[in-house]
């Protein structure tokens, strides 16, 4: 049974010896503090940090019954040791986990430094060692290391009697703060027993306490139970939902394995149906002796370009600066190289990652459209989409290496079994998707360099790789062999059905299906990341179905970005625009955007949150939905716009900007962060030049490598080359 601490604030005399004994036991340094601040009383340090796990808050609360008109209440604040902790649910490497004994503890050797726990905790408890080059997450562990310690057999060389040992054991197996407390404000023991005692105290002293045990129901129950003589809102305790915070993530992540199987089956079915239709149409045409125009096979060829053109030189300079920033990030540490803090655990890099992944959805959309929906007319943009997707995801991963506090612990992601961490899902999904993108792209260089042997190997095994990748993914997410077996069988059957037969032109249909499956999972899971923070993100953005919105918006953004990329390629290489294709993409983008906006606005309206449209967040919302969403929807809906290069370009740019703005709002503008516990001093966030340098360098690298790819490999369609001059 879980242990807990009962904190009776009416007994607290404010001596703060718990703060000192905590620092003593955990060997934490003193913090440089300054005199009291207005409204805070004698409370030092003001907030928790990696150097302080406990702070006693000091409140003067109005009290008409007192002769002075007020009463002074001290409240010791620290980690709440939730029964079902949001931080542990967030952790992709189980570095934070709830022990059977009760404390929520941290294991640095597993931590990758993603800081998702800091975002997830509703009290702002986990803090990071920003000054360190090897940073940990720090928080109260309820002295788990004391509980596990052995009782000594001797003292100063003299053997202890059984009685003495018992006494020692009892004192030792308490947290340091509880042992130290001279006022009887802290009591450690079985949670159920303490809860009963708390209720008894309230019953026996009806005038003394408010009838509320903070922690009995908060966040599904916590390991810290508070009694107080004033309402907890007046003592700086936030209102926290009584449902365990990881509840929604558990549902979302739990539905991943069935979703994988479902998406695979649907895609396989759709493909088979479309393929059959094609064959029937062909057979009918032969029967009716209608002359069919033979399918045009797009040929691809490298484009003529100079390696050291002025544009490329600029890109190289940006990459160089980005590389320098990357090195500085590791020389200086996160705290000194970024504007991040215990308030803003995530910043610009995460905005970039979220936006980038969303707009890089063009790769899986295009693959799906071409191969599953059999739109051969769009075949010519396939290679562009895949290479762009592969490069984008690669540099997202590189950005993450800079963003993680402990990237050299990356192997943790493969070693432990997090129960329902969206971060874990996203990490694995992106890693596996990268392998699929690589496989999708491989035939291009293999063919070009005439490596026929390897190309044959690819033809034979690329499809067979998919069931294994999917099975691995489902295993990691479910640890349930039934789901693994089911997923493997479904994808293996598809791989067998859609295998390349003798004399057929190999088509990466299985890879396309895998790409869509993985993308569906991680695009939506990026939305699931927010499910742990209904208290922080404005409900104009937060929603239990945020994952659906993230997935749908990524399709709109991805297809629109493909239009923009095609346009930039045409402009950059002075090639003719293939407006039919772009218009077709525009139409797909329109439908995706329409579905997204209906779901998004319907969701906000149905949950009655349109009233939140006010202030700066309201402006952000209106800009996102109105200007960039509805306006571009209107534009893309008109066939006239879709046929006009300029108008289509503007519409597509608006869609992309809208979705990027949506991701910005999710990470920055929609957030109301209150800072570390006791959530009184939120800091501002301003990205540093190093953060910008790395992000911009990554974009430059993507563009440059794409240009190099187009120059040395057949990425762009051949027939389009038109001498514009």
């Amino acid at each position: 049974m879980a242990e807990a601490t009962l904190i009776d604030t009416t007994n607290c005399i404010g001596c703060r010896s718990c703060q000192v004994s905590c620092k003593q036991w955990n060997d934490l340094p003193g913090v440089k503090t300054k005199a009291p601040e207005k409204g805070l009383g004698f409370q030092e340090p003001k907030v928790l940090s990696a150097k302080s796990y406990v702070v006693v808050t000091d409140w003067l609360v109005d009290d008409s019954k007192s002769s002075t008109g007020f009463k002074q209440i001290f409240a010791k604040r620290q980690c709440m040791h939730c029964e079902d902790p949001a931080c542990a649910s967030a952790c992709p490497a189980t570095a934070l986990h709830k022990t059977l004994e009760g404390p929520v503890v941290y294991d640095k050797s597993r931590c990758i430094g993603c800081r998702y726990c800091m975002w997830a905790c509703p009290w702002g408890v986990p803090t990071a060692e920003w000054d360190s080059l090897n940073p940990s997450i720090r928080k109260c562990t309820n002295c788990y290391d004391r509980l596990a310690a052995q009782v000594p057999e001797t003292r100063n060389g003299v053997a202890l009697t059984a009685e003495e040992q018992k006494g020692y054991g009892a004192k030792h197996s308490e947290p340091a703060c509880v042992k130290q407390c001279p006022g009887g404000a802290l009591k450690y023991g079985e949670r159920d027993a303490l809860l009963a005692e708390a209720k008894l105290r309230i019953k026996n002293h009806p005038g003394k306490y408010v009838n509320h045990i903070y922690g009995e129901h908060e966040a599904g129950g916590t390991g810290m139970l508070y009694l107080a003589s004033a309402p907890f809102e007046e003592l700086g305790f936030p209102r926290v939902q009584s449902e365990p915070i990881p509840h929604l993530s558990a549902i979302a992540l739990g539905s991943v394995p069935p979703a994988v199987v479902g998406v695979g089956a649907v895609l396989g079915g759709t493909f088979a149906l479309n393929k059959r239709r094609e064959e029937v149409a062909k057979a009918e045409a032969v029967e009716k002796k209608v002359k069919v125009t033979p399918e045009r096979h797009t040929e691809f060829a490298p484009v003529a370009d100079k390696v050291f053109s002025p544009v490329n030189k600029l890109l190289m300079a940006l990459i160089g600066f980005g590389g320098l920033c990357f090195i500085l990030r590791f020389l200086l540490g996160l705290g000194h190289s970024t504007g991040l803090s215990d308030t803003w655990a995530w910043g610009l890099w995460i905005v970039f990652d979220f936006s980038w992944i969303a707009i890089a959805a063009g790769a899986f959309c295009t693959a799906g459209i071409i191969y599953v929906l059999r739109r051969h007319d769009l075949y010519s943009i396939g290679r562009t989409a895949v290479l762009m997707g592969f490069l984008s995801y690669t540099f997202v991963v590189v950005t993450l290496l800079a963003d993680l506090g402990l990237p050299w612990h990356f192997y943790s992601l493969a070693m432990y079994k997090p129960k329902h961490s969206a971060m874990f899902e996203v990490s694995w999904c992106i890693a596996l998707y990268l392998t699929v993108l690589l496989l999708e792209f491989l035939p291009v260089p293999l063919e070009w360099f005439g490596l026929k042997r390897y190309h044959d190997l690819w033809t034979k095994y690329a499809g067979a790789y998919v069931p294994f990748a999917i099975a691995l993914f489902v295993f990691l997410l479910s640890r349930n062999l039934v789901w693994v077996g089911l997923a493997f069988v479904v994808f293996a059957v598809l791989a067998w059905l859609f295998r390349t037969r003798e004399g057929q032109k190999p088509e990466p249909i299985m890879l396309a299906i895998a790409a869509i499956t993985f993308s569906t999972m991680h695009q939506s899971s990026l939305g699931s990341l927010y499910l742990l923070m209904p208290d922080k993100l404005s409900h104009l953005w937060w929603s239990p179905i945020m994952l659906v919105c993230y997935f749908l918006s990524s399709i709109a953004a991805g297809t629109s970005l493909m239009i923009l990329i095609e346009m930039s390629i045409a402009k950059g290489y002075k090639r003719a625009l293939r407006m039919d294709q772009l218009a077709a993409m525009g139409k797909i983008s329109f439908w995706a955007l329409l579905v997204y906006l209906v779901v998004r606005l319907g969701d906000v309206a149905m949950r009655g949150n349109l009233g939140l449209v006010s202030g700066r967040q309201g402006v952000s919302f209106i800009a996102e939905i109105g200007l960039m969403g509805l306006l571009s929807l209107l534009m893309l809906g008109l066939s006239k716009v879709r046929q006009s290069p300029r108008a289509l370009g503007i519409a597509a740019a608006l869609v992309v900007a809208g979705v990027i703005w949506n991701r910005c709002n999710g990470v920055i503008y929609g957030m109301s962060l209150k800072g570390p516990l006791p959530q009184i001093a939120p800091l501002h966030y301003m990205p540093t030049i190093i953060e910008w340098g790395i992000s911009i360098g990554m974009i430059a690298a993507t563009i440059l490598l794409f240009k190099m790819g187009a120059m040395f490999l057949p990425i762009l369609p051949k027939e389009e080359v038109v001498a514009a001059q």
Partner: protein
Amino acid sequence: MTSSLAEHWCAGSTTRNVPWLTELAPEPVVEIPEKLAKKLGIDTGDMTKVSSARGEITVKAVVTKRMQTLQINGQEVTTVWMPYNWGFSGLNTGPSTNYITIDAVDPGAGTQETKACLVDVARVGRVEGGNRG
């Protein structure tokens, strides 16, 4: 009125060298009742000059409800409070309150007359940059 703090002992020469204690009580302050603070235009965090016939020191003000204007013999008596645990050396330093207290001892017991004295309080300015520690 002066007194010691729980966190520091006497002039603080030992306790003000302990980081964990220094953190809890980082600098000397003068605690001023709300009524007086309002009259003098002093806010928490303002630098405030406390002076007596013997000297003057400048410390930050803490405006509080904890000290209230007393009614003694039909007269309003306002008190301010200062801790006396600071001095010129240690991890954190500050002016010693005993610059303004009375340098005399009880002739019989030898107890010093440093617990209470008459002072004047005036706002001198504000430290910019806030107090966030």
